[in-house]
């Protein structure tokens, strides 16, 4: 099993406040890792550092063993890393179909490489992604006009259609009703079955136990523990931190 994506000793300070300090993390191929920790633990910042949206103060980000540190986000994305955002960041005034199209087009000029056959392939990928996310009927609606759950699925459909091999999902299932949640779990499982490497941030521990093969526990920017779910979730100290922080 390879390690397509790994983080070594990552550091980031915001105005003297350590948001992420000395974090190591390996994402193993086909394995789903969950980032767990109280609010403000630095989970989203870690994603932003990994995808190049924020430049770290120190440390290393490796994709297939090669450093991508300092690369701009769009270049890292083109290497097969796709991510979602906590606040979704859909392309609000575009149609659902165009949201997915925009996400998968490799260049942004008049003509795409590959000509007609590549275009047909892309359209097929868009259709398939919309279908799997249950958005076929809404394909021509504008993203802002969708219902909450539909918007969440659209953010997944964008990633799904890209065919990226590494997915970074930021709270993808929060606020979903049980029916949608089941659909989401199935989507992720299908992806894993196809060999996708996933890292997700999730507060709902039920989903974490359902999906995650490993858990990395973060608090105040530092990784406190990493291991199998039952190991971590049974550690009373970690659970104390987790719920203790949640209640304030």
């Amino acid at each position, binding site marked *: 099993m390879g390690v397509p994506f790994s983080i070594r000793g990552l550091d980031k300070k915001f105005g003297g406040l350590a948001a992420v300090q000395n974090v190591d993390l390996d994402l193993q191929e086909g394995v789903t890792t969950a980032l767990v920790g109280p609010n403000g633990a630095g989970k989203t910042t870690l994603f932003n550092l990994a995808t190049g949206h924020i430049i770290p103060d120190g440390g290393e980000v490796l994709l297939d063993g090669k450093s991508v540190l300092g690369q701009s986000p769009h270049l890292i994305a083109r290497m097969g890393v796709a991510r979602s955002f906590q606040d979704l960041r859909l392309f609000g005034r*575009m149609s659902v179909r*165009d949201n997915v199209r*925009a*996400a998968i087009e490799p260049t*942004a000029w008049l003509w795409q490489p590959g000509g007609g056959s590549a275009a047909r392939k892309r359209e097929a990928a868009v259709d398939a992604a919309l279908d799997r996310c249950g958005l076929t009927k809404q394909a021509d609606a504008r993203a802002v006009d969708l219902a909450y759950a539909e918007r969440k699925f659209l953010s997944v459909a964008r990633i799904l259609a890209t065919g990226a091999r590494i997915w970074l999902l930021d709270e993808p299932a929060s606020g979903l009703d049980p029916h949608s949640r089941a659909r989401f779990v199935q989507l992720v499982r299908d992806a894993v079955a196809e060999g996708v490497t996933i890292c997700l941030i999730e507060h709902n521990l039920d989903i974490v136990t359902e999906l995650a093969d490993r858990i990395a526990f973060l608090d105040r920017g530092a990784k406190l523990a990493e291991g199998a779910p039952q190991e971590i979730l049974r550690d009373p100290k970690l659970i104390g931190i987790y719920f203790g922080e949640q209640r304030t």
Partner: protein
Amino acid sequence: MIAYLLNLATLATIFGILAASLNVLIGYAGIFSIAHAVFFGLGAYAGAQLALQFIPDVLLACLAGGAISAALSLCLALPALRVRGEYFVAASLGLQMMAVTVFSEAHALTGGHGGLVGIPPATLFGADVSGPAPFLVFALAVLGLLLLAVRLLMRGSFGRALMAIRDSESAAEAFGKDVRALKTLAVALGCAMAGVAGALFAFYMAFVNVESFTLEQSILVMAMVIIGGTATLAGPLIGVLLLLLLPAGLSFLPFIPPTQIGAVQQLIYGLAMTLLMIFRPAGIAGGRR
């Protein structure tokens, strides 16, 4: 009356190009520039100088105007890449105010406040096209061509990528869009079109000076785009027609003295801007937001 209508149609066509070009920035790329008159002006000066110094070929002038404006559009792209929102609006304001001073100071290139006078009648491949009708036909052809280009570009992946950046810059980056390159290109495209409009304007007026390229011109064009509706092909054109026909329409009302038409016109378009933003922020041609 025919002369008057031709006059109006030509002006509307030129402003149509200008509004469509600003729409590329505001509507599709989400770059809220209020310095658009600067690039209109650059094109006008370039076109006028070409006609005065070398050859009054209107097609060459359009190309020169577009090229100069596109080249100098970096002045706008630079802040657009660095800051967003209110900051960018402020930056474009700064650019606009500086440009007006440069336009009025660079006597050798712009003629200062006195302007560039005596721009020769327009020709096209040696044929005279300066008459009202042929010039209108030429301007319309340019407008049609540019609108077609905008439509092709915006319906394609370039447009989708731009709109993606407009709606969420970070998400667009996360899906492999080169935000810097795309924004720079979009700014260059919009400004080049404004430059083309400027070159046409220079021939139409046979005279250019800094008064046509001030902040209020930028605001007027912005109002045309906003009132008509952003990110649609027809919206800016509707805005242009409304705002250009407004003074003509007002002059039919006998109770407004002619010297007050300007103020009344401003009153109406100011009010229209505010009311539209309150009740229909996507503009007249735009859908519900």
